[in-house]
């Protein structure tokens, strides 16, 4: 009980800290850090998505960059067409480009969700290392597709010149953009809390612990896991759409397997199956990148060493270190 309370306090602190950084940056006119905070929020959102599959469902997906990238491409390509004034497709149905934020988000959710349903349907027939490898391979497949299709500039990617329109808000203002990302992040965490605490979540967590038990009481694990996988991918896909807007650029690098590894790192650094863990993980990652990266180009070397240390000696991640073991009562 005490530990629960400690974790709740910690979570509140984490959420407030992430909110405070851009506000302070804005107050002292260091706008660069507003963008950094938005990056953290977006990458954390991607991690929140993966955490649902990996942390709660035990599905070690090594291909979540695919969903991040697909979300990004869905948003990027539609806004590219809107800017050009061209149609995305004219046959069999007419689909125009769009500069409406909600449309872009919807497209990102839809595309990542549909592809996740296909990838998940095949991948979840396998378990263990096979699952890790097959999700990796599917992500590579989409990566190579994006690289070799000339329509959207292949490897070079597409620049996006304008942020999209969200009624009542001006997304081209960096602070406003941060607030939107932050709100979506908290919303996604809230949704995860509800889902994990629900009946569905109970079945999902049982699937992680003991699939035979779940089957024996008459709940088929496959549809439970597939549903969670799709939800997880959609959250990560939405993060991809935000990422592309933040950078004003979409390219296959957001589909690369390094990114899949990094999203996993966010989850693990923070603590597997901890709702706020991905924020800590993404923040640590970005801080390492900016701070160590400020001293030396070799920051990835230090990242590697730190990560190795966490995996070998600090299982449970940062939240595990600070708040003790996770509880399921």
């Amino acid at each position, binding site marked *: 009980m005490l530990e629960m309370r400690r974790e709740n306090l910690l979570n509140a602190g984490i959420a407030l800290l992430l909110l405070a950084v851009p506000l302070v940056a804005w107050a002292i006119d260091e706008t660069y850090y507003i963008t950094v905070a938005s990056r953290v929020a977006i990458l954390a959102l991607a991690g929140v998505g993966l955490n649902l599959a990996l942390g709660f469902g035990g599905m070690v997906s090594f291909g979540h960059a695919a969903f991040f990238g697909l979300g990004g491409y869905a948003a990027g390509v539609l806004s590219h067409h809107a800017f050009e004034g061209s149609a995305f497709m004219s046959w069999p149905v007419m689909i125009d480009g769009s500069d409406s934020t909600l449309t872009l988000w919807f497209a990102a959710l839809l595309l990542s969700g549909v592809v996740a349903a296909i990838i998940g349907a095949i991948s979840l027939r396998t378990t263990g290392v096979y699952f890790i490898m097959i999700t990796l391979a599917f992500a590579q497949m989409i990566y190579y597709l994006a690289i070799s299709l000339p329509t959207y500039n292949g490897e070079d990617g597409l620049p996006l010149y304008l942020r999209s329109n969200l009624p009542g808000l001006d997304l081209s203002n960096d602070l406003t953009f941060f607030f939107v990302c932050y709100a979506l992040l908290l919303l996604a965490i809230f949704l995860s809390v509800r889902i994990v605490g629900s009946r*569905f*979540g109970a079945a999902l*967590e049982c699937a992680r612990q003991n699939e035979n038990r779940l089957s024996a*009481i008459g709940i088929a694990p496959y549809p439970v896991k597939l549903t969670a996988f799709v939800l997880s991918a959609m959250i990560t896909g939405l993060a991809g759409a935000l990422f592309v807007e933040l950078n004003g650029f979409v390219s296959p690098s957001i589909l690369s397997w390094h990114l899949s590894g990094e999203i996993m790192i966010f989850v693990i650094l923070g603590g597997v199956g901890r709702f706020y863990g991905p924020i800590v993980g993404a923040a640590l990652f970005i801080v390492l990148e900016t701070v160590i990266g400020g001293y030396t180009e070799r920051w990835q070397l230090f990242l590697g060493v730190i990560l190795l240390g966490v995996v070998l000696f600090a299982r449970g991640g940062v939240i595990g270190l600070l708040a003790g073991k996770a509880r399921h*009562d």
Partner: protein
Amino acid sequence: MTEPLLVLDGLHKSFGALRATDNVSLDLAPASIHALIGPNGAGKSTLIAQIAGSLKPTAGTVRFLGQDITALSVPKRAQLGLGRTFQVSSLAMAFSALRNVMLAVQARQHATFRFWRPVRVDRSLIDPSMAQLERVGLKERAHLPVTALSHGERRQLELAVALALEPKVLLLDEPMAGLGGEDSLRMTEVLTGLRQDVAMLLVEHDMDAVFRLADKISVLVYGRVIASGSVEDIRASQEVRDAYLGE
């Protein structure tokens, strides 16, 4: 004669050259306990697994409530009313005892794809689950994680989970194994109390319990049923004594 609930017809299961189940045919009548005894490695658990659906028989059929279920998956069979306990406890280890039972109640209600309402405060899950835990004597331990339960308590929890499914037939794989005298007595009582509602196929090494509970006993040796009959028949059978009771 009423229709048997469960009928095994000519089941065979081979692992390579080993015949773990060799032409087994059995029935289970309503409101009865059919005990399955036999030495270690006789193929009792393998048989249970084929009935529950986690192993596919090499040949033969399993009929349940008049329906051929040989091709059905484990969850489908469970939904039809076939409950089981495992010889080696198989539970959601990170969950509390209560959450393990609640999941079974939820499965019974066919209401898993609900994403919003927290189960922690769901009386429609908690109350029936507590009732099952009380029945097996685990009420006080309801909020402990399974990892904190003793071996015997896990056996009791297995039974509570299976009962929460309100099964028509229970497959029990050595429910008394590892239980102390008192717990084992309690388990016997619980099973006696159940027999009117649930028919049971009981695998058990504890002969006192078997003789006290069973309406019918089958003896399995090297995958074959070498004898089948009432408690008296089996006690009296020379063949069974030679092969198994070792008297």
